């Protein structure tokens, strides 16, 4: 269990993106760099592996995401759907001037992904 927790807090590299996951029961998932079809599945696996039953809220922080395309959006939609099934709240955070914010709004997914401008109490 200790090893698993250490892994959950480590930063991992997935091609052109870095993923850092920390905290419980609110778990922050920070994705920095580019997310595309080359690494979306890998990132999905990483986030799924780091999930713990005691987590009741996952905050996906995309402030440092420099590129997000439809493959990345599909990954976020899948993630939200799975966590919803596990009765875990999900919030996606992206500042208004960020790359991720623009793509999520353009795609009409703001409500489905519970898009917010900044991290903090909900």
């Amino acid at each position, binding site marked *: 269990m200790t090893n698993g927790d250490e892994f959950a807090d480590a930063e991992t590299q997935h091609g052109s993106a870095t993923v850092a996951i920390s905290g419980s029961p609110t778990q922050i998932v920070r994705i920095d760099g*580019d997310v*595309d*079809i080359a690494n979306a599945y890998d990132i999905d696996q990483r986030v799924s592996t780091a999930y713990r039953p005691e987590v009741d809220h996952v905050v996906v922080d995309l402030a440092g995401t420099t590129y997000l395309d*439809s*493959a990345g959006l599909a990954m976020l939609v899948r993630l939200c759907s799975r966590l919803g099934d596990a009765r875990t709240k999900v919030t996606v955070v992206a500042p208004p001037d960020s790359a991720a914010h623009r793509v999520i709004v*353009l795609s009409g997914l703001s409500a489905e992904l519970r898009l917010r401008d900044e991290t903090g109490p909900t």
Partner: protein
Amino acid sequence: DDVAVIAVKRSTDGGLHIRLPAQSISLAPIRAMMRRWLAIQGANSDETHDVVLAVGELASNACIHASPMAVGTLSVDARMVEGVVHVVVGDEGRWRPPADRGGGRGLTIVRAVADTLSIESDDHGTRAHIERALMSPRTEAAAK
């Protein structure tokens, strides 16, 4: 990086011409080259983001639909015509209708960020052409 050097030719018309394997590993280098080229053309950060996103989506499609039995070539040809960025993304495959692969959110994004999008397919492959006008393009004279 050797791959990029071999694949990119800055032609005399100031265009950008990229040839890379139609594989997802080619996408990040294509985005990096497009960003550099767009900066030279005078694109602002919003325009750069939008064009890179559109080209990224089209190139991603090309990787998914590239020749099924072997890795084909993905081509990206960008040029400026009277203040408008033109990019043609080509591959050697035939795209299936968007409905076959989960709704076609990628093409919806391309249509939202590009001024125009046209796609043509024939026996040689598929070519997607986008245009996006720039607010303050670098003039031909200044570019020389």
